[in-house]
């Protein structure tokens, strides 16, 4: 990426959390899932996002709990590393460098110190050559270790990671590809393979889709493309294997999972129904329907009390063993395509786009959190492949967020088009939108675009349709009944020479309506519905249309399909300027005059930001990404930045987000913003641990005093700084609570470290007393430390300083204290000075 200014493109939020199966920690308190290039940790109780484990430089492709230590987790990534984390505190313990892109990770209790990984086969000839390899992780104290000890297990691996599973007590590993099931026995070092016919007489499709092994029994469950589940037994003998079939799913089984005791088998597929089969009881099953999107993964906690399913709509559902949903973690829903534009809800400032089928999702960009789904279609969703579903294709908010207009459509493929225009009113009491009017036949053909008028008094909606008409809709009084009703009705129907309208836009004060008909832009007065003027600049059909804002409101900007960006002056009705640039998306900043244009040329997209009154771009950014950009939105900032840098000034009041064709949400961020974020995140760490207590107030005062003395001019003096007064204290606060000695032990040490010692005039007797006391403390602490669980040792390694402290605490403490005293002394002096 060309770095030409301090504005840079960053990926922001809303990454997939359903890419790989989520895992639940042994104590059932945490839920971990791979999300983009980090691992996210959620609480299973509150469904809140706690923190993320960041460190990988590419997509995280697999996570697995360390079988040797239940507080640690392995993660593997496409960047070729396996990392070991302490997931409770978010500390990276170790990095193993494998050197190949990794695609899945498996661990087994029996094979300690060995992880099994999916890597791409070295031979470049085959495209989908995946290999299962066992990697012996070297034991060394270093942070970064190269693990080169690879041994291939098999090369007949399906790219789907759910097609590989460990058998009973890690004795064998089963993996399937296409129509072949392979079982590799570690003891015999042999692979048995069983294959099925592609189809049988009844038209069944037998390809394997997933595998699960029974934890205590020699049984392998396999899911198939036609929805069958086969239970394989007796596969130890190559010839005499048997299988039984169970069939409930009507489409491919996506995932299978045995409960830890092996009493039940869980399965899920596109139907979004979690099925629980009783093991060994034939067809007895329990179902949990309507969970959301289709189920991609199922996993259970190690005590079998919790299940979690991850769904195609970027959601993780936590389910109790009594088959009740107890929690939902929802990410930004990414469908196949965003049909509606990206929009901003004027009330909550949330990003609005289509989410799960038939819904609009409200997503808070600030907190990177899914707020809620608004059900637009209000129909039972039928999970069936190839069924033509209703989709929300258009949506628009009015300026104040009182009204929402949506268009849902069905039958895009066939000729039988059905669509509804719906208008939703915001309800203060429920804090949500409530359906106000449904218009069944708003137009005779598909609605192309719609927009609300932006005036304060009256709201008006204008829709344009392929039939060649545009209609204005008003909420208002029906003349016939003389009753004040709140429903919307058609106010005006307009057309222009039977041309197909393409776009419509209201001016900033709603005194003008511009509707583009192919190459012609018509300007109407919404008060009288008079055609005021037409503007035309052939060749090329108008693609995008917008009025200028604020001081540039006399300008009208339009882009055409023939690579032309035109700007008209509406006072003179003359073309002000035009330039030849291929613009794929034109986006107006509602808070300033700026207009952003994404231009797609020769395989990459450039961004230009300009003001309509001059044809010179204010800011340009080459090579934003390599795809065409069709969706972008300006999001108003909570508090405006005050950067004076000319190139980033346009980002002061609002932020530009855009969506690439891979459905990645990106934004532009400035250097000052990143600085602020960084400092705030640093601050957050301390803020978490130090609540506002009298103690903190003391520290805070301390810090302020010190700051006055030491650093008269700090670069970011306006922001609160972390209290850095006492190293001991920060250390104390940073060390995980479970490795610390008991609070009663710590207390006296802590308090003494806080004492403002009069080093200069300290009488020796008192010093002696103090040191002996500390020695006692140190001994006590040592014994405490030994009583702690042994496996905390490993975490401690990560915390170097604490590690040093543990064996010879008294000495270290003395050193600390000396340092503390030194700093304290200067502060003391300041205090004495200030208090004559």
């Amino acid at each position: 990426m060309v770095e030409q200014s301090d504005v840079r493109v960053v990926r922001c939020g809303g990454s997939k959390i359903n890419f790989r199966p989520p895992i639940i920690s042994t104590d059932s308190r945490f839920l971990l899932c791979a999300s983009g290039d980090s691992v996210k940790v959620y609480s299973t109780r509150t469904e809140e996002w706690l923190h993320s484990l960041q460190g990988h430089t590419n997509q995280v492709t697999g996570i697995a709990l360390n079988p040797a230590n239940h507080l640690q987790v392995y993660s593997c990534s496409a960047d070729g590393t396996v990392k070991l984390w302490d997931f409770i505190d978010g500390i990276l313990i170790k990095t193993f460098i494998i050197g190949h892109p990794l695609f899945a990770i498996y661990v087994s209790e029996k094979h300690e110190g060995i992880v099994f990984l999916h890597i791409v086969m070295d031979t470049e000839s085959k495209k989908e050559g995946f290999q299962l390899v066992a990697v012996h992780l070297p034991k060394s104290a270093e942070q970064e270790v190269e693990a080169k000890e690879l041994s291939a297990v098999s090369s007949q691996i399906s790219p789907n990671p759910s097609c590989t599973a460990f058998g009973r007590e890690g004795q064998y590993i089963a993996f399937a590809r296409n129509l072949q099931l392979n079982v590799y026995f570690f003891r015999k070092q042999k692979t048995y393979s069983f294959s099925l016919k592609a189809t049988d007489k009844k038209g069944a499709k037998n390809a394997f889709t997933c595998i699960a092994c029974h934890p205590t029994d020699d049984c392998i469950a396999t899911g198939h493309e036609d929805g069958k589940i086969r239970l394989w037994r007796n596969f130890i003998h190559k010839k005499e294997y048997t299988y039984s079939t169970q069939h409930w799913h009507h489409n491919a089984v996506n995932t299978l999972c045995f409960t830890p005791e092996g009493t039940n088998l869980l399965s899920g597929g596109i139907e979004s129904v979690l099925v629980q089969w009783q093991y060994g009881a034939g067809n007895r099953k329990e179902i949990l329907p309507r969970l959301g999107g289709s189920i991609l993964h199922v996993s259970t906690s190690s005590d079998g009390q919790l299940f979690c399913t991850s769904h195609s709509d970027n959601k993780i559902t936590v389910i109790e063993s009594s088959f009740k949903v107890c929690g939902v973690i929802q990410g930004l829903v990414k469908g196949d395509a965003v049909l509606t534009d990206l929009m901003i809800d004027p009330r909550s400032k949330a990003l609005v786009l289509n989410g799960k089928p038939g819904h609009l999702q409200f997503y808070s960009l600030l907190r990177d959190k899914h707020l809620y789904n608004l059900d637009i279609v209000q129909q039972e969703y039928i999970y069936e492949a190839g069924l033509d579903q209703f989709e929300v294709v258009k949506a628009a908010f009015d300026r104040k967020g009182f009204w929402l207009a949506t268009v849902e459509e069905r039958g895009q493929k066939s000729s039988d088009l059905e669509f509804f225009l719906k208008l939703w009113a915001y309800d203060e009491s429920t804090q949500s939108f409530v359906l106000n009017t449904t218009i069944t036949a708003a137009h005779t053909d598909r609605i192309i675009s719609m927009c609300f008028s932006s005036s304060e008094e009256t709201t008006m909606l204008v829709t344009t349709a392929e039939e060649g008409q545009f209609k204005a809709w008003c909420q208002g009084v029906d003349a016939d009944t003389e009753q004040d009703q709140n429903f919307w009705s058609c106010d005006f129907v307009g057309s222009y020479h039977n041309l197909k309208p393409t776009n419509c836009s209201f001016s900033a004060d709603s005194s003008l309506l511009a509707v583009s008909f192919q190459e012609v832009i018509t300007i109407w007065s919404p008060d009288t519905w008079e055609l005021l003027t037409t503007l035309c600049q052939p060749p090329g059909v108008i693609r995008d249309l917008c009025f200028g804002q604020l001081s540039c409101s006399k300008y009208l900007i339009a882009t055409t399909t023939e690579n032309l960006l035109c700007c008209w002056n509406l006072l003179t009705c003359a073309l002000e300027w035009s330039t030849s640039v291929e613009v794929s998306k034109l986006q107006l900043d509602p808070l300033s005059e700026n207009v952003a244009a994404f231009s797609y040329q020769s395989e990459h997209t450039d961004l230009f930001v300009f003001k309509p009154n001059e044809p010179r771009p204010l800011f340009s950014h080459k090579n934003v990404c390599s795809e065409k950009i069709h969706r972008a939105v300006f999001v108003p900032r909570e508090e405006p930045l005050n950067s004076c840098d000319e190139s980033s000034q346009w980002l002061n009041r609002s932020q530009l987000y855009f969506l690439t064709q891979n459905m990645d949400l990106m934004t532009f961020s400035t250097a000052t913003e990143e600085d602020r974020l960084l400092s705030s995140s640093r601050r957050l760490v301390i803020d978490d641990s130090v609540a506002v207590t009298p103690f903190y107030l003391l520290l805070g005062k301390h810090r302020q005093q010190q700051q006055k003395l030491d650093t008269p001019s700090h670069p970011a003096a306006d922001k609160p700084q972390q209290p850095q007064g006492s190293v001991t204290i920060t250390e104390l606060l940073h060390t995980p609570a479970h490795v610390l000695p008991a609070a009663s032990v710590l207390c006296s040490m802590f308090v003494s470290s806080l004492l403002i010692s009069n080093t200069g005039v300290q009488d020796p007797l008192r010093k002696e007393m103090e040191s002996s006391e500390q020695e006692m403390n140190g001994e006590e602490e040592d014994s405490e430390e030994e009583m702690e669980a042994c496996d905390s040792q490993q975490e401690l390694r990560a915390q170097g300083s604490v590690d040093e402290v543990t064996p010879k605490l008294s000495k270290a403490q003395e050193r600390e204290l000396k340092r503390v005293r030194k700093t304290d002394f200067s502060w003391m002096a300041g205090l004495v000075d200030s208090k004559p």
Partner: protein
Amino acid sequence: MASFKPTKVQFLPKLGEKVTEETLYWKNYKSPVQIKEFGAVTKIDFSPLPPHNYAVTASTRIHIYGPHSQEPIRSFTRFRDTAYGGSFRGDGKLLVAGSEEGLIRLFDISGRVALRQFAGHSKAVHVTSFLSDGFRVVSGSDDLSCRVWDVPSAVELSSLTEHTDYIRALAPSRLNPDLFVTGSYDHTVKVFDMRSGSSVMTMQHGHPVECVLLYPSEALLVSTGGRYVKVWDLLKGGQELVSLKNHHKTVTCACLSSVGNKLLTGSLDRHIKVYNSSYKVVHNFDCDASILSMAIAPDDEALAVGMTNGVLSVRHRKHQKDKETLTSRRRRGPSYRVFVKGKNFMPREDDFLVSKPVKQYLRKYDKQLKSFEVSKALDTALQTWTRTSKPDVTVAVIIELNRRGTLKNALAGRNEESLTKILNFLLKHIFDPRFSRPLLLVGDIVLDLYQQVFHKSPVVERLLQRLMDVLGREAELQQELLQVLGILDTLFASLTPRKEVAALAAPPVA
């Protein structure tokens, strides 16, 4: 986890009359009580005193009915010829009536024999009335004269002969004992003042006047005649305020409801129209025969209508009380007490309320759809009651099945009986614009599915033949309509001024 979302039955606006408060008010009458009289009912008058008995003049007798009786509680039969215009005095104790032979008779309500007879008119007296002092009677006759009689002495006080045709309408002023209004077949309405002894105001109605009516404030005067109802402003010297033409035959009678001063007019076209204060028709009653007379009781308790075929039809107002007693009787069962238990408990301030989860009740077809039983769901939706009284539900289920892609499965494998049901439903509703789209699809699928076996059942074949006829007719009609639209377009195009062609794009559509 979301719960099952039931099939959405689309609410489609009903074509035709809009339901307003007015219509609800005027619809709130019980079905009419029909009483057969001996001849055409020419006049109905309610007693101003409760219990608001009413006098019905028909043929040679005047009957007085109680508010709820269907038999006359009193009748005056001493007329030799047809009686006309029986009307009460302000205290409801005396009744005056004219007759074909020209005699005017005065009756005591409790007596049987006429107390007074006023003789003087040479022709039939069609309208009689007391003046508001109660001591004088005014009458209008076919001998073109209008006379005022003194009740105690039974002498004629004055005779006014300003009209040039039959006098068939009369309305005394209630505020001034010397004023009355007459309407005549000479197309005029005249206001007479007894103090001056002549007319003080004359208004040209333009048609033979059948009825005149004064508003309670007496600032407005209503006259009916021909197909017109005209309202005059007396304070502006008899200026015409509004002229209404809502009937298509002669308007014979008018009256005012006491609630909200709504004007009601009855006509020979068998309709009663109710106008609101801005003279828009808000409701319409239909009767069996041409209406000659009409009266409404104080508080709109009853509406009595007399018709040419001698039928008196009385509508009584429904009361909320009746309904309540009905429902409360139903609720008085023991189940109610179980049902209400704990419902009237008022939580105290520090109580923590736990709301009970509401159970979702599904309709039968929804339950079947939930378990993917598509054929059964369609059967349920096609049950006779649903099919006939709620076709929108049936169509909603069909749409839902189509959305699920299982409409074909649901329609397949049916026997003659159920196929007949479907075809009958199609025949009835296929050209309803609200339903035609899904139903045409159903028709297509049925044809596809049963093509091979149609000839085996004559019943189905006949139905299909009918369906084809219906669709053919509908197609022709649509084509004709399009042609008319084209003609209209050219007409409109030629009418619009050439200069502003660009400005006027299309007329606004409400």
